[in-house]
C-alpha cells in the first residue's frame, strides 16, 4: 500500500482555462523566439538532431548555442512523458504514486540550506520579582554537518504528516569534499528515513556510486527500476531561458538511467523573470517544458516532474521573497499548468522570509502551505524547518511545522455525510431531545477516538504562558530519542565495502561496536 497523501476534491484554481491557454501559447512562442541559450553542447546537439533550429553564438568565456524549439517537439515530449510517476521508498508503505491529473498532495521536505540553527533556552529573572523566571529560546546559526542531516531525516521519518524527504542541510564537515559529498548525503538520508529520498547532485562523477548504493539497498538494478527509492532534482535551467553546462550534463545522465527527475526552474520575478504574473508564468512554463522536452529526447518515458520554484523579488534587497503572496500565486498557476499537461507537479510552499522561528515564520508558512495545497500539486515541497528563504534550517521549526501540516491535512479530509450518518444522527437527535438534559456529550466518545476529531494545538502552554517553543523542543528531543529503522547491517557493510568515500562514522553498526 503506497502512502495516501491527501486528495483535494475540488482544487482551487487561480487562473481561468482561457488564461492557461494563453500562457501555454506564450510559452510556445518564447521557445521559438527568442528560444533558449544552451551552454551545454550535448543538449544543443540533441535538440539539433531532433529538428530544433540550433545556431552557435559566442558569449563571454564559454561557447554556447541558441536553441529554438518548435511546438511539435514540445507537444510530443509532453505526450510521451509519464502521466504517473512512482517515487519508491525503503519501506514499501512509504511509496508515493503521483498522477498528473489527480490532485493528490504529498508533503515533502527540502531544500538544501547552508546554515543549521541550534536552539537553547536561557532563563531570565524578573528584576522587580526575582522569583518569577521565564525561559526564552535563543537561536545560534552554524554550518550544517552530516550529523545534522541524519537528525533531520530521523525526525522526518517519525512525522506522519511528512510523506518524503529532500535533504534539508548542506553537509560542510571538514572531511566532506566535492568527491564524497553526494554519497554521504544520500547515505545519511537513506539510512535515517524509510521514506522516499530526493536530492540534487554535487558532482556527476558521484552519480553511479549513488545509484549503486540504492541498488544495494533494494537488491539490484531491476528492483531499483521497480522501486526507485531515490530521485534527483536538477536546476538545468537558469532563468531567463538558459541551459547550464554542468547541471544539464547531470540531468541528461539521470534521464539515461531512467530514474525519476524533477525539471526545476526558479526564476525570480523582477530580476530573472518579468515582474508581472503573465510574464513570469509564460517564461517558467517555457523553461520547464524545454527541460521536459530534453528529458524525453534523451530517453523517452523518463519519469519527470514539472518542477516549479518561482519567487518574487524583494523590493528592498532584490533577494528572494518566498514569503510574498505573489510567490504562492505563481506556484498555484504552475500547478494548473502542470495539470493542463497532465504531468505530476513539484510545487513550492512554506519557504518563509522570516529568519528565526516565531510569529512571522508561522504566518508565512501556514499561509503558503495551505493555499498551495488547496490547488492540488502532487509533490509539495512544503519546506519543513526552512527559514530565511533557502538559507537556514531549524529542526525546531520542522517540529512546529508538523502542527500546521496536521491542520491542513485534516481540513482536506472528505466530509462524512451520507445516508448512514444521517440515519444515525437522526436517531441520536430524537433520543437526546427526549432527555431532560438534552446533551449530546455521550455521543462524542466513539467519534473522539475514530480520528474524526482534530487534535488541539500540540504545543499549547497553560494559562497565559506561551510555552510553544519549549514544548516543541521537548517533542523534538522525544522524536530524536525514538529509534529509526536503519539499513540492515549486512547491506550496510556491503555499501561501505563497495561505495568509496563514505565516512566511517555514518556506519551505525561500527559505531555501536
Amino acid at each position, binding site marked *: 500500500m503506497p502512502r495516501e497523501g491527501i486528495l483535494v476534491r475540488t482544487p482551487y484554481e487561480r487562473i481561468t482555462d482561457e488564461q492557461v491557454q494563453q500562457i501555454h501559447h506564450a510559452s510556445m512562442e518564447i521557445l521559438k523566439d527568442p528560444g533558449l541559450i544552451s551552454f551545454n553542447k550535448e543538449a544543443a546537439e540533441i535538440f539539433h538532431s531532433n529538428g530544433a533550429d540550433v545556431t552557435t553564438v559566442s558569449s563571454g*568565456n564559454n561557447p554556447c548555442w541558441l536553441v529554438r524549439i518548435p511546438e511539435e517537439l514540445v507537444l510530443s515530449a509532453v505526450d510521451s512523458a509519464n502521466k504517473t510517476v512512482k517515487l519508491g521508498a525503503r519501506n514499501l508503505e512509504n511509496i508515493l504514486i503521483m498522477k498528473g491529473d489527480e490532485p493528490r498532495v504529498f508533503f515533502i521536505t527540502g531544500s538544501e540550506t547552508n546554515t543549521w540553527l541550534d536552539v537553547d533556552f536561557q532563563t531570565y529573572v524578573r528584576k522587580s520579582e526575582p522569583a518569577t523566571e521565564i525561559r526564552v529560546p535563543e537561536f545560534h546559526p552554524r554550518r550544517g554537518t552530516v550529523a545534522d542531516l541524519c537528525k533531520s531525516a530521523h525526525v522526518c521519518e517519525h512525522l506522519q504528516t511528512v510523506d518524503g524527504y529532500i535533504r534539508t542541510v548542506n553537509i*560542510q564537515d571538514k572531511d566532506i569534499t*566535492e568527491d564524497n559529498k553526494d554519497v554521504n548525503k544520500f547515505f545519511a538520508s537513506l539510512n535515517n528515513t524509510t521514506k522516499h529520498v530526493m536530492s540534487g547532485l554535487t558532482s556527476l562523477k558521484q552519480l553511479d556510486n549513488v545509484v549503486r548504493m540504492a541498488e544495494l539497498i533494494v537488491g539490484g538494478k531491476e528492483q531499483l527500476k521497480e522501486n526507485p527509492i531515490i530521485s534527483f532534482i536538477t536546476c538545468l535551467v537558469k532563468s531567463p531561458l538558459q541551459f547550464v553546462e554542468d547541471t544539464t550534463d547531470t540531468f541528461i545522465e539521470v534521464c539515461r538511467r531512467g530514474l525519476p527527475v524533477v525539471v526545476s526552474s526558479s526564476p*525570480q520575478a*523582477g530580476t*530573472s523573470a518579468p515582474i508581472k504574473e503573465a510574464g513570469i508564468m509564460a517564461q517558467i512554463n517555457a523553461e520547464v517544458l524545454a527541460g521536459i522536452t530534453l528529458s524525453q529526447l534523451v530517453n523517452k518515458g523518463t519519469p519527470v516532474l514539472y518542477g516549479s520554484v518561482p519567487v518574487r523579488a524583494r*523590493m528592498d*534587497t*532584490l533577494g528572494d521573497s518566498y514569503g510574498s503572496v505573489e510567490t504562492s500565486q505563481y506556484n498555484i498557476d504552475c500547478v494548473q499548468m502542470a495539470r493542463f499537461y497532465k504531468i505530476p507537479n513539484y510545487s513550492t510552499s512554506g519557504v518563509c522570509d522570516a529568519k528565526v522561528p516565531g510569529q512571522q515564520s508561522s504566518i508565512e508558512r501556514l499561509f503558503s502551505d495551505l493555499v498551495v495545497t488547496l490547488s492540488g500539486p502532487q509533490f509539495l515541497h512544503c519546506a519543513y524547518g526552512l527559514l530565511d528563504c533557502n*538559507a537556514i534550517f531549524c529542526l525546531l521549526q520542522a517540529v512546529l511545522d508538523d502542527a500546521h501540516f496536521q491542520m491542513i491535512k485534516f481540513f482536506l479530509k472528505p466530509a462524512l455525510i451520507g445516508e448512514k450518518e444521517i440515519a444515525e444522527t437522526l436517531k441520536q437527535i430524537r433520543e437526546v431531545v427526549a432527555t431532560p438534559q438534552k446533551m449530546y456529550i455521550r455521543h462524542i466518545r466513539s467519534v473522539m477516538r475514530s480520528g474524526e476529531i482534530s487534535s488541539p494545538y500540540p504545543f499549547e502552554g497553560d494559562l497565559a504562558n506561551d510555552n510553544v517553543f519549549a514544548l516543541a523542543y521537548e517533542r523534538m528531543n522525544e522524536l530524536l530519542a525514538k529509534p529509526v529503522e536503519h539499513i540492515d547491517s549486512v547491506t550496510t557493510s556491503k555499501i561501505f565495502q563497495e561505495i568509496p568515500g563514505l565516512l566511517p562514522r555514518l556506519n551505525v553498526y561500527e559505531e555501536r561496536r
Partner: protein
Amino acid sequence: MSEDIIAALKENVIQGRKTIADEGIDEALSGKPGVVELTQSALDNNIPLETIIAQGLTAGMQVVGEKFATKEYFIPDMLASAEAVGAAMEILKPLLEASNIETKGKFVIATVKGDIHDIGKNIVAILLKGAGYEVDDLGVDVPTEKIVEVVRESKPQFLGLSALLTTTMLVMKEVVEALKKSGIRDKVKVLIGGAAVSDEYAREIGADAYCTDGFHAINVLDAFQKSGVQ
C-alpha cells in the same frame, strides 16, 4: 543653457532614465532626452567634464541615495539611476583618460569557476559603475587563471569575487592562493560576496573584505579609498 542641461541631467539621473526611450517615474518626461543624450549635448556645449560629473551625475545620485534612505526609492530605482550614470561614464571615459582626471578606481568583478549565478554580481557591477568606479565585469564561470591574468594585465585596485554555492565558494580560496603564487596578492584588494560566504570565510581564505550587498561594497570601497589604498 548649460545650467539647464546640467539640471536636466541631474533630474534624469534621479528619474533613472538612461535614454530618450526610457520610462521615468514622472510620466511627463517620456520622449524627452535621457542621461545619454543629455551627456552628449553637455559635451557639445563644451560644459567641463568636472561639471558634468559633479553637478549632473554625482549630484543626481546623491539625491537618489537620500530617497533610498527615506524608503521613497527601492533597489530597482537605485539600479536604474546607477545604470544611467554608468552609461554616461562610458561616454565620458575616453575624455577622462585624455584629460588626466582620475576616476575613483578600477574594479574587476567575476563569478568564480563552476558558478553561473550572476544576479548579485550584476547588481554590484551596476552600483559601482554608478558610484563612479571603472568596472570590468568578466562574467560568470570564470577560470582562476583568467582572473589572475586580468589582475596582472589591467592592474585594478580592486577584485570582486562572487559565488552563490557552497561548492564554488571554495574556488575563491583558490583564486586568492593563485594571486599569492603570482606575486600580485598585495597589488589588489580582494572583496568577496554571495549567499554562501561570510565575514568569517573572508578571513579564513585571506580576502580583504566580505560585502553583504552592493551598497555595502560601495561603503567598503570608499573606506579603502579614504585609508589611501594605492
